[in-house]
């Protein structure tokens, strides 16, 4: 009994701690973003780190996913004579779901892990204490630049991912499914709507917070040396990914309701 109960209680306590801690951190970030000095140089450095350096990863994965989707849809629909619907399916799925979600998951893995381990190491080597001891705020110097960078970069990366993913689909459509590239392109343009794009684009602002805030939270809460840095890094990636995947469902529903209402 105890073997089940104790880990369950520990898990529940940790979850409540995490939710409370994340709430407090979000409140501090919000409050300090709109008061006092803004470190533009640190924000631009983080935009470079988070955005530019993630670009190859995002472009390669998006291109590959677009190609795979096109191939799978094509082979599946060919049996029913529905190959011509591949451009529409790939475009709509990419714009609404795959582009923003895969970009976010990739960023959670690359950037979330990086943020948690970097901040965790700074805690272990007392650099976060030093920031405080020198009369400055680690929220302003460390957390806010990373949160803003993710908020700026993720929508841009998701948009690029949409373009590259559809381009990957077009290449496979032309080479493997014998679809005319011009037809494929025109079909995308004719069927993909602004609503599809905005529904995916809107989610990225939430996903940016799901990546940066848990990563900063776990990094700042490292206490006992190098081993905990590794644990914090793993937790950051796992929690961010879960938040993105679960959040995606609810956000899809919300955006669908908004679209219906508008």
């Amino acid at each position: 009994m105890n073997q089940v109960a104790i880990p369950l209680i520990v898990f529940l306590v940790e979850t409540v701690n995490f939710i409370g801690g994340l709430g407090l951190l979000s409140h501090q970030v919000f409050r300090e973003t709109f008061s006092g000095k803004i470190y533009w140089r640190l924000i631009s450095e983080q935009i470079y780190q988070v955005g530019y350096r993630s670009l190859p990863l995002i472009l390669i994965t998006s291109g590959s996913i677009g190609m795979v989707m096109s191939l799978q849809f094509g082979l599946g629909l060919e049996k029913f004579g529905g190959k011509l619907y591949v451009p529409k399916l790939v475009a709509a799925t990419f714009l609404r779901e795959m582009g923003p979600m895969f970009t976010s998951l990739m960023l959670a893995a690359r950037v979330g892990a990086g943020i948690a381990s970097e901040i965790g190491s700074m805690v272990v080597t007392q650099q976060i204490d030093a920031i405080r001891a020198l009369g400055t705020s680690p929220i302003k110097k460390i957390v806010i630049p990373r949160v803003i960078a993710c908020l700026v970069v993720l929508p841009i990366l998701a948009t690029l991912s949409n373009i590259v993913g559809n381009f990957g689909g077009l290449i496979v459509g032309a080479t493997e499914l014998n679809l005319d590239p011009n037809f494929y392109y025109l079909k995308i343009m004719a069927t993909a709507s602004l609503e599809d794009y905005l529904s995916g684009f809107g989610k990225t602002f939430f996903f940016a917070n799901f990546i940066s805030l848990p990563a900063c939270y776990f990094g700042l809460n490292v206490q006992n040396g190098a081993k905990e840095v590794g644990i914090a890094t793993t937790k950051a990636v796992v929690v961010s990914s879960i938040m993105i995947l679960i959040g995606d469902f609810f956000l899809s529903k919300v955006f669908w309701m908004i679209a219906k209402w508008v």
Partner: protein
Amino acid sequence: MIEVIEFKKSFGTKQVHRGVTFEVKKGECLGLIGGSGTGKSVILRSLIGLEKPDSGKILIDKVDITKMNERELLEIRKKVAYAFQNGALFDSMTVFENLAYPLREHFHLSEKEIKGRVHDQLADFGLEGNEHVYPGNLSGGMQKRVGLVRAMMMSPQVILYDEPTAGLDPFNTKKIQDLILRLKSRGVTSILVTHDMPTANAVCDKMAMLSHGRIEAQGNMSELNQDGRGAIAKFISGEEF
């Protein structure tokens, strides 16, 4: 200048401080000694608000800092500096950038003025030529010295030293002692947490020994040196007390 009154602090079920009380007057240097794990560094960290006591008061210039929030503490941290045991230098910044950090944050100085001040301090403490070196490429002793210089860049009224000579060779120990003495001669109040008794003897005006969660003994150096059977004498000679 600094008063610690009935300071109590626990970690989990372990009560580390059971009512620590001491006072440091302006310009004085207090040596805080005691065995490992007696909570000396916790007191030091609490004096700058990095830790909060469970109860008790910490008065700096008669103002209790234990009730202050993080924003109010920023002002205290401009006049009370903390020299970390390992320097705690920002590893993504060069020595120059580390020293320029407090100046850029708290003073409206031109880049030329910042450069001038940093170069002056580096030359003053024999660290010139290391401006563009990253902390990872400095020796432990150099890191500690740069950490000390960074702590005093804002000309604080109080400096808290956390084991500044731990693990250093006699040459670097002497350099750190000289540095502390120079700051003391400028009227800076200081608290020195250390196990290094020669350094404590060289720089401290008085000593307080932390044991069993309380200040077991305190007094000025001549009093303590005369009391050969006291707790501090026993601590120094490695006897049980």
